[in-house]
């Protein structure tokens, strides 16, 4: 029997705000432990939360970028559980009325986006444990996807695209090493053709996007093999161990938390006005589809080229910086490698290369060599042309002398040309190029040869 995996992702993103979500403490990574804290984010007796407007605005911006419907009325809830990284032993989050609903990244649907507070960080020493509350209260956005992915590669692509969108909008820095983007996977396996989902297994503790991919590459066959052996899977939470390259059981269903959500009485619900939405909409970066249409219109690009170039915001930016008069040629050069933004080539390199060919300084064929050299070394075209002595000879005196030599030495070709065989010219051009060691401007060479042959 064939099996297929169903994957949904829960992504936590720290928002790029100056201060924490409920107090005035700085959101700063890497400060001395417990130096960015106050009674509010330490959960001291009697303190109250005050909502950070900027966090709400950034969450709405993320929602708009992902095509979500923004809730005009949204509220806060308490999620109750005990853990030393939770200052109040409840987390202020959003349960049934999140800020954003619906939306899409590529072929993956977004279920919802809600805002909540990040927890502190626990450290374990030889005999003791310590808690650093600097991170506690950092605004944290949770993006829940639909179970729309079927492979580790699809999950990888979704996370990569999501991260890029959030960075482009300035919503978050999404540095996984700094814990600014964290991801939990829900993955189940079922026989192909079966409608019901298999038992949902949640995987936690992946520290990178490739870690997510590796975890799924481990977990999907693990579940499939278990089912093939006739075992029954159980709903459970597993922990990814990056060193071991395996997942391990954390807790089974009967130990699942009852979070006892209830409305947060210390905060007023959020109402989003038309004016606020309009205001945030102004910060919205151009959506890929809108950009694609603009590239076709503005640069005269074929649909295919425009589609490739807008597939990533970085690539599209690269193109716009490089594009000069001949945008189509620029696009061709950019598309010769899979991801030019990952290479040492800058937009200025491409612009210079296109200009050099346009001006007849080098031939198109030489251009390919220059491009390869740029890709390898990051040197600018002018430097490469100079170093390799590639500049074409456009000095007509020199070319005329070579042309005379070629005509004198190739009587047969001259006769063929005069008899009406136009192709015979190519042999003569080849001779001149040989004499010039390939540096003569071929266009100029054929012009001069034609003129001389007709005159003789």
């Amino acid at each position, binding site marked *: 029997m064939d099996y297929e995996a169903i994957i949904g992702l829960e992504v936590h993103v720290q928002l790029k705000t100056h201060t924490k979500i409920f107090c005035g403490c700085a959101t700063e990574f890497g400060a001395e432990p417990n130096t960015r804290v106050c*009674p509010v984010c*330490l*959960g*001291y*007796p*009697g*303190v*109250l*939360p*005050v*909502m950070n407007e900027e966090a709400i605005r950034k969450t709405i911006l993320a929602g708009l970028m992902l095509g979500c419907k923004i809730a005009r009325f949204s509220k806060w809830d*308490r999620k*109750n559980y*005990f853990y*030393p990284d939770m*200052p*109040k*032993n*409840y987390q202020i989050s959003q349960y049934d009325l999140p800020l954003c609903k619906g939306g899409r990244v590529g072929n993956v649907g977004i279920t919802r986006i809600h805002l909540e507070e990040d927890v502190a960080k626990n450290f374990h020493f030889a005999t003791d*444990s310590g*808690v650093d509350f600097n991170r506690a209260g950092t605004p944290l956005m949770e993006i829940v996807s639909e179970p729309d992915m079927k492979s580790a590669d699809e999950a990888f692509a979704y996370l990569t695209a999501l991260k890029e969108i959030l960075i482009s909008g300035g919503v978050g820095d999404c540095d996984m090493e700094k814990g600014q983007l964290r991801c939990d996977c829900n993955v189940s396996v079922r026989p192909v053709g079966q409608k019901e989902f298999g038992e949902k297994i949640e995987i936690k503790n992946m520290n990178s996007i490739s870690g997510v991919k590796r975890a799924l590459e481990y977990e999907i066959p693990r579940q499939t093999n278990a089912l093939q052996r006739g075992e029954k899977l159980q709903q459970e939470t597993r922990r990814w161990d990056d060193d071991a390259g395996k997942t391990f059981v954390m807790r089974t269903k009967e130990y699942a938390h*009852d979070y*006892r*959500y*209830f409305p947060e*009485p*210390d*905060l*007023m619900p959020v109402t989003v006005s038309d004016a606020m939405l309009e205001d945030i909409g102004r910060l919205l970066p151009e959506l890929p589809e809108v950009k694609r249409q603009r590239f076709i219109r503005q640069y005269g690009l074929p649909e295919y080229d425009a589609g490739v170039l807008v597939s990533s915001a970085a690539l599209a930016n690269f193109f716009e910086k490089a594009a000069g008069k001949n945008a189509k040629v620029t696009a061709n050069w950019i598309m010769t490698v899979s991801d030019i933004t990952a290479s040492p080539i800058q937009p200025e390199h491409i612009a210079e290369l296109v200009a050099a060919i346009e001006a007849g300084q080098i031939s198109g064929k030489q251009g390919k060599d220059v491009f390869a050299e740029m890709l390898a070394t990051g040197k600018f075209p002018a430097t490469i042309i100079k170093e390799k002595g590639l500049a074409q000879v456009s000095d007509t005196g020199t070319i005329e002398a070579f042309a005379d030599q070629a005509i004198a030495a190739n009587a047969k070709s001259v006769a063929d040309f005069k008899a009406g065989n136009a192709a015979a010219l190519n042999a003569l051009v080849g001779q001149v190029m040989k004499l010039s060691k390939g540096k003569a401007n071929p266009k100029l060479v054929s012009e001069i040869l034609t003129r001389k042959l007709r005159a003789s």
Partner: protein
Amino acid sequence: MTLHAQTIAQLRDKLRRGEVSPREVTQSVLDRIAAVDGKLKAYLWMNAEDALAQADAIDRAGIARTQAGTPVPPNHLLAGIPIAIKDVLNVEGQPCTCGSKILKGYTSVYDATVIAKLRQAGAVLLGRTNMDEFAMGSSTENSAWGVTHNPWDLERIPGGSSGGSAAAVAGDAAIAALGSDTGGSIRQPAAVTGCVGLKPTYGRVSRYGLVAFASSLDQVGPFTKTVADAATMLRVLAGHDERDSTSVPQAVPEYAIEGGVKGLRIGMPKEYFIPGMDREVEAAVRTAIKKLESLGAEIVEISLPHTEYAVAVYYLIATAEASANLARFDGVRYGARVKGEDVIDMYGKTRGAGFGAEVKRRIILGTYALSAGYYDAYYLRAQKVRTLIRQDFEKAFKMCDVIATPTAAEVAFKIGEKTADPLKMYLCDIFTISVNLAGNCGISLPCGFSQKLPIGLQIIGKAFDEETVLRVAHTYEQATEWHKQKPNL
């Protein structure tokens, strides 16, 4: 009359004229505390030296002595007045135990907003008063630090949960005090100790720095010897606070209390005069309402039909919120800690040793009401009935300007009388709880005696209409002598 027996208004006149100094007033109250608090046990903590130093600082700043006869500048309203603070409000540098062992050793690191406001108005902060643990109780018997005694009869309870503040004011061991009221914790102790207790409208006074019991019900308010003093205190305490999102950005009136009750309609809810209540209490309250009628008010019979559900609704919503609010007392960051084998064990041992029986009972009740499978039947249902109770008041206030009821169904009971039966204790608040659930304001003031024990009259007002409540209460008070009676300590 000795200084400690006087009101804010009387002392302020003397202070403005320079007849007495803030130090003399504070010393007089300190002497009184030394004389009577051995019997009352109203205070949990005080620092006489610090109180005198505050008084001297106010003297030096010259804000107590202003031109007599001119209007009092707002920042001089309490200049040199010694005030006691319920142990549930944070005062920087002072302990704040909430009557609980779990906060033993904790020192506040910041001032509650109401404390900052008292300081700005020139008040002298005397010390901290006893209370039922985390404000859960109606007799102050649930304090981890022992019981407080009623100044009228030391064998009896002073009400609760703000029993320490009530006993201090009633016993002249403070000129005024702060309390907190979640289901009646200011009004009920005021009633049974014969002083004035005001619960402002939810959102009128900042809760920042008030250790939360039930966040959607808690409100800070004053205990005073007269209604005029309550108005003065409210002027100082009220107002929007950017640190409390539930405080309302609405201007604070001057709380003009003169003007009488002529033309005002006073509602008498039939559900608040019930079989089983103390006959003398009922008679005193009916007589008080007649008195208001004779002063020019119109009495209208009204109905608050969902009153009978108020106690049940309250004990679901308040406990649910409390179960989360009290979760932070875990031994990790502050307060008492009992070591355990691991963190979960430490939580259990710390909370097991730190919380008293009533607090544990309510945490369990609240946790249960929010649990999967029970939420809809308990918490959600309670919220729906809460809406009905609020609508009862909205409808009633179309027919009247204020509502008059008894504050409590009986006078102060004997210490230990109800400790064995929590449900009996819960019923102490049947006449006060609805006001918190609806978010309205209410005041309790003396209206008679039964067996030489004070009886309280409750005046309930529309949301943010403390002014009318105070005016009615002041008019009644000035036409009667009850507030002039003093316990024989």
